[in-house]
């Protein structure tokens, strides 16, 4: 493999994985927000006696 071609190839695939990782982090952040909202909702619910 020639050096310049290798570096462009490395950059191309590097970008793919970085953008995919950023998207998965974005999904993870949305998921954490959802979990926090769920916990807040649970805290607002009146306590029911456990049967």
């Amino acid at each position, binding site marked *: *493999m*020639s050096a*310049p*071609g*290798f570096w*462009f*190839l490395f*950059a*191309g*695939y590097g*970008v*793919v994985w970085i*953008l*995919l990782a950023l*998207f998965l982090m974005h*999904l993870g952040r*949305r*998921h954490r927000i*959802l979990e926090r*909202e*769920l916990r807040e*909702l649970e805290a*607002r*619910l009146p306590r029911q006696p456990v049967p």
Partner: protein
Amino acid sequence: MSVHRRLAPFADRVLPWAATGAMFAALWSVFLYVPNERTMGPVQRIFYFHVNCWWAAYLGFFVAAGASGWYLWRGRSEHDWLARAAVEVGMLFCTIGLVTGPIWARPIWGTWWTWDPRLTMAVILWTIFSVYLVLRSSVRDDPEITRYAAVLAVVGVLDIPLIMISVRLWRGIHPSVISAPASKGGLEDPRMVVALLVTMVAFALLFAWLLWLRYEGLRLRDALHRVEDQMGEVAR
């Protein structure tokens, strides 16, 4: 049993592993199986991910347009969640396609970017669906904005056929490798076709998995907001 319930066990348990396995197979085929292209050398290997990113983006935008059309007709939230999830995933692949293209172009064309018809139409597509995401960026969904965004998705997808035919219509410099014969710059080795197909399967599975994750997020968020609204009404 709803379609969602029938899909859930497969999408939650099988899809992540299938997508990961297929992606490893794709990487193996691109880096270890396929031979170097004669004139472009190693940098041609970007092609396998670049092309499939664009196909995944087109798939996302077509799904979004179909679901948006369905939403405009029936007004059901499920179709809107699907459209929004498909645009977000489509934009991911569209962005990757737009970035990997110039990385391939620099050593081959000698420039990062040129306002070739296909490239210009691709930027327009990215801009249209960026506007869609900006419209949908508010925390709570406004029904009027949701309808505007749905119309934008239906109209915006019409750019894709223009991208497909732009190379022939306006004689751009972007290669059309798939439709060209091997003697005129197409895939010269059968292993290249195999690598392209393996990568296509990997991207289809990755697309389906990410779409499912985002759809589930939107569905749960909507359910949560409904419960919050009901609690607010009871409190009043």
